[in-house]
């Protein structure tokens, strides 16, 4: 096998009991929700502020912080702004994880409501979005667990699958694979493909590659170690690549001058 999984232990900063997740027999999971996190967004897809972590330097306060402070004081309009700012992202994450539209709708509602109820627990030195993602991921996983039956898998359990470790389909892709399909057909292919990933893989993939969280934030949101996130991300990426190859591979003669 090409890649041996790296150390897969979890981060449990606050001694919180480690949640486990029941998943279908062939699935592997891997995601929990400790109460603390140490976020530092490196991509900033969903937010536009930057917090300088270097001690002693001036720190730019993220615009969400003011909204959170107002919301804590009972200003629901301020919280409504936060909802509008992040509900699309939360819905997307929930859909990726649960693969169920109704569950995703419930996750959006419950995640924001829980965030509102727990605003006092929000630490101003972290980003509201990352904190919210953590709540949304946990809500999503709870719903996934309700729908799935089968053995309970600990977060620490290593994800043993050979698929994705060894690229098999070596065919190159068409120069513009997206143009081979109409927009809705392409979306269906992408949905079907990501749906086939084990939940632990697609959860890491959506946070890291779709939503643009940093490796550290993803690890923190899922209660995984950084090596565990990296290991799952690589496997997720390679599995998706492998599965998409049958749609996007170069046809005979294509690309030949």
């Amino acid at each position: 096998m090409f890649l041996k999984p790296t150390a897969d232990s979890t981060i449990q900063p606050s001694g919180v009991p480690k949640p486990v997740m029941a998943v279908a027999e062939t699935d592997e999971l891997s995601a929990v929700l400790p109460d603390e996190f140490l976020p530092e967004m490196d991509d900033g897809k969903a937010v536009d502020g930057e917090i300088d972590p270097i001690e002693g330097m001036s720190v730019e306060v993220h615009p969400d912080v003011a909204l959170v402070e107002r919301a804590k004081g009972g200003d629901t309009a301020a919280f409504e702004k936060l909802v509008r700012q992040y509900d699309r992202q939360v819905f997307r994450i929930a859909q990726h994880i649960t693969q169920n539209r109704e569950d995703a709708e419930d996750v959006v509602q419950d995640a924001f409501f829980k965030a509102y109820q727990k605003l006092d627990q929000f630490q101003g030195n972290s980003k509201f979005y990352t904190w919210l993602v953590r709540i949304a991921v946990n809500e999503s996983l709870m719903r996934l667990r309700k729908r799935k039956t089968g053995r309970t898998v600990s977060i620490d359990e290593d994800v043993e699958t050979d698929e994705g470790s060894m690229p098999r389909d070596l065919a190159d892709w068409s120069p513009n694979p997206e143009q081979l399909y109409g927009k809705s057909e392409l979306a269906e292919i992408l949905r079907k493909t990501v749906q086939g990933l084990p939940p632990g893989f697609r959860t890491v993939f959506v946070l890291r590659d779709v939503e643009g969280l940093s490796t550290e934030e993803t690890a923190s949101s899922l209660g995984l170690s950084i090596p565990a996130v990296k290991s799952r991300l690589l496997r997720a990426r390679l599995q998706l690549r492998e599965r998409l190859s049958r749609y996007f591979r170069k046809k005979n003669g294509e690309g030949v001058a």
Partner: protein
Amino acid sequence: MTCSEFMAKLDDCLDHKLDAELRADVDEHLRGCEHCLITMNTTKKTIEIYRSNEIYELPDSLRVRLEASIMARCRKC
């Protein structure tokens, strides 16, 4: 650099986290290994396609309904 060594660095490579020395090693490997080059390019494309295509869009009508529901619950508590 072997193929296995390259695969171990693929994520860092895709995330542009290689230092100059490693980058040079990777480039040299890719010049002589079509297998790894294709793997890298198509994996990169996989990520790009998922980033640029919205596959779970929240429709406006549903969004309005969800926001109203969330805020109603928040105002009650």
